[in-house]
């Protein structure tokens, strides 16, 4: 049982009122309060911090809430705001992470071998040492509509060319899983829209598993996928595309890098709001810090959690075209589709990535969505979603002679 502290006459109830009308903070209390008293309790610097914080909020945050609400649909705003707040609870300043609470809060869905809207899924542990799990999504053909047995799950693909998308979910290297509902849903959409097989990788996460574990897992999954006879197209090759959002986009780049000297052919990289950074602060980071869900502080935390201890953000994993990276000139690197959201605070790094690829003579297409925020692709309730899905579809399927593509918008959702 706690004990009461010294009962001072000045131990009164204090609170800070934020008066929206006058947009100024007021220190109030039931009883006296003086700056001296506050100093004595919190220390002068914290008191200063409080005041500054409130002034900052008075001036800017009020505008921010409404602004971010204006650019995304309400349900998207709720979803991403909820993530933002819940994630804040999980991050500790010493770099530790409340993994158990994170798993409790995360909404997951099981694999489902029964087709739903024409797509079914199943999980495979492809490496028992590291417990590496992948989730495979396939289209159910008409004749397969009765429950497929295990043998049928790995039946060879029936069409001549079927792209296999190796997908890496986002979460800043720390959050989410292959079976998180938001990503299971996204993968199912990719199957339908691109008429592809999607393989989602449940890579190891920081801070428990730092660099390069996620890349190792990606590489292991790539090797596994490329060696499945039943994933081959008519030309006896597996047609592999790498795709990922946020940290997944970063993994796409790094896995492709690792594959450069191998005999594994990657036909394309798709990076959605991918997570890059650097030691220097860029203009977009300063301008957009805290404005549209993400803050520099949380970005920094995630890099500290993922990168090796003692490293800074110019580590090549974080900054692929930074001062410590090797050139990609003359390297056989896959063509890339890079999607950048105009309201993402790290866009300058993403644009630098595109520039870096161009300078190295690589094939890259930039899709810049001015009014998009992070997470816009999680719900099909905005134009950007459809634009991006179309682009991804074209990026993949324009390689092939006329394939049956679902053009109807209705089937995208």
């Amino acid at each position: 049982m706690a004990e009461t502290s010294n009962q001072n006459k000045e131990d009164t109830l204090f609170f800070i009122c934020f008066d929206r009308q006058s947009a100024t903070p007021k220190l109030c209390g039931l009883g006296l309060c003086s700056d001296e008293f506050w100093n004595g309790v919190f220390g002068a610097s914290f008191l200063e911090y409080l005041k500054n914080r409130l002034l900052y909020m008075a001036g800017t945050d009020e505008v921010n809430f409404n602004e971010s609400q204006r650019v995304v649909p309400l349900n998207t705003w709720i979803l991403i705001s909820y993530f933002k707040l819940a994630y804040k609870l999980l991050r500790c300043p010493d770099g530790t992470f409340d993994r158990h609470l994170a798993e409790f809060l995360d909404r997951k869905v099981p694999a489902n071998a029964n087709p739903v809207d024409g797509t079914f899924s199943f999980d495979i542990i492809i490496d028992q040492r590291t417990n590496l799990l992948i989730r495979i999504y396939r289209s159910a053909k008409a004749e397969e509509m009765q429950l497929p047995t295990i043998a049928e799950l790995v039946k060879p693909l029936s069409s001549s060319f079927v792209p296999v998308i190796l997908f890496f979910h986002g979460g800043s290297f720390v959050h989410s899983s292959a079976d998180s509902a938001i990503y299971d849903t996204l993968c199912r959409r990719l199957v339908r829209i691109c008429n592809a097989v999607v393989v989602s990788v449940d890579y190891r996460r920081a801070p428990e598993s730092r660099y390069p574990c996620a890349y190792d897992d990606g590489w292991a999954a790539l090797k596994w996928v490329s060696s499945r006879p039943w994933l081959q197209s008519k030309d006896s090759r597996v047609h592999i595309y790498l795709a990922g959002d946020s940290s997944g986009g970063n993994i796409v780049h790094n896995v492709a890098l690792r594959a450069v000297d191998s005999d594994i052919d990657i036909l394309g990289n798709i990076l959605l709001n991918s997570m890059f950074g650097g030691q220097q602060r860029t203009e977009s980071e300063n301008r957009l810090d805290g404005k549209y869900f993400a803050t520099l502080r949380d970005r920094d935390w995630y890099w500290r959690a993922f990168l090796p201890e003692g490293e800074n953000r110019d580590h090549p994993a974080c900054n692929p075209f930074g001062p410590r990276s090797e050139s990609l000139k003359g390297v056989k690197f896959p063509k890339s589709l890079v999607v950048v959201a105009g309201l993402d605070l790290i866009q300058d790094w993403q644009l630098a990535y595109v520039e870096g690829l161009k300078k190295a003579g690589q094939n890259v297409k930039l899709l810049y969505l001015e009014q998009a925020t992070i997470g816009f692709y999680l719900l099909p309730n905005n134009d950007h979603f459809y634009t991006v899905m179309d682009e991804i579809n074209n990026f993949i399927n324009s390689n092939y002679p006329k394939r049956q593509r679902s053009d109807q918008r209705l089937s995208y959702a």
Partner: protein
Amino acid sequence: MLYLLLKADRKTMKREHQETANHPLTGGGGGGGGEGCSSRSKTWKEDQGDGGMDELLEGLGYKVKSSDMADVAQKLEQLEMAIGTFQEGQISHLFCETVHYNPSDIYGWVDSMLSELNPSQTFDPNGSFYPIRNSILGQQPSMNSSARNSLIYDDNSEYDLSVIPGFALKMPSEWTFDLQREGTSKRMKHDAPQISTSPVNSAAKLRSLPEATRPLLMVDSEEAGVRLVHILMACAEAVQNEDLKLADALVMQIRLLAVSQAGAMRKVAIYFAEAIARRIHKIYPQQSSIDSFYSDTLQMHFYETCPYLQFAHFTANHAILEAFSDAPRVHVIDFSMSLGMQWPALMQALALRPGGPPAFRLTGIGPPQPDNTDALEQVGWKLAQLAGTIGVEFHYRGFVCDSLADLEPSMLDIRPSAMETLAVNSICELHRLLARQGAIDKVLSNLKVMKPKIVTIVEQEAKHNGPVFLDRFNEALHYYSTLFDSLDGCWLTQSNSQDLAMSEVYLGRQICNVVACEGPERVERHETLAQWRERMESSGFDPVHLGSNAFKQASMLLDIFSGGDGYRVEENNGCLMLGWHSRPLIATSAWRIASR
């Protein structure tokens, strides 16, 4: 000391949001405001009779009523502003003792978070709030006296169970400031209707795909493993088509091929092949009374080897302890007494209760024993000895019956709920009742007569009770393959090979029953959480949610469990499930009689 609160001007915010709520795009249907989505997206069902959830969010596992969206947005803003005044390090401290419930309900979550920051605020009845919660902001010395007196604190970390010796309890961390927690936990009475659970959850139940889901997890193995499965399926199909000669021939092939296999797949194939052989030749395993003693022993080995039963006991006990709270006299009726392994931990936790342990009465129910040895009584004696050493007043009664449906509430000496708090516990037992017409309904209506404060139910998470043999076979093959895979990990880490071998026999007997038997003989009629949920709810029970504290502690239990790498705890609409990787295998749910 001090109490810090950031308040927004509520009136202004409310007005702003009322405007957005009435806006044609943001109000009502789940379309959301802002950019164009109406023409593109399919027609949103404006008025869904099941509670009007935003469809898109629901597809991602979050339940928010369309009509609540603006409110939720406002509260999220409030929460952001409130925690925005704290530095990063303080935030996790602020909420480190908070117990979260029902993570799908964003409204409830943000409401309870706001209440944590401001306990003097009146509780919003729409929140999914729950009994034990801590306020984190220290004392309020000059609050008016009535507020102060309502602050009764029980640090719920003292309810933590020591299921396995050496299980380290996570103690609340130190505060960085000098704030002292007086422990300002308000107790919500269990009688308060859990508004968030009734319309919200039943809506989700209708909408989700419980019946149609077939979770599938495989371990990448050699080609021969897949071939083995292929032949097993062909064999089952032959049985389904009553082509017994073919089935017999395939059984031989399976046995031959299995020899060349390694690991889990071999064992699984052998058990299934044997079960099919028994079915073909109608050599059913005897359900004699010798069985039950042997069963108990096998179950004990299974309990030692892998965490499923330990998880079951742990989570059920957690729910029971929360329900008992500070009741002075408690009674547990255990439908699945067996060797009573669940109860030492509960008794220890009761012994450590602040304010002292209650008087604890235990009624153990079990099947008849061979040669009239009274195993139930013996278990009772052992527990009584334990009770003596830890200082818990203990009374015990054992009941022998063939079926739970044979019990009448009058036999069980149930005392009025004002005098004694009752919990009924059933671990992997209720599914047996499904083998007899009307049995489960009788037992559930008996439960309602007994008026328990809580009913804890643990069941295997599997569809082993469908009408078609082939489907059951398929489901069982996947389920037990996954179970055996998880045991496989244990072979490498545990030295007690006898335990492991016995565990496999334990599971093998279940396989045999599912595959070889029919009618009343087939008692391993496992059904999924979704199926049990529907049955309980339509029988007049409401769910009692298990929260993040139970989840965390169960997860921590697994962390220290050797070979525990692949095990995973999952939260599912207030219930907890334990699985191997992404495949849930066992589920714990808690219930109380619906307040109608």
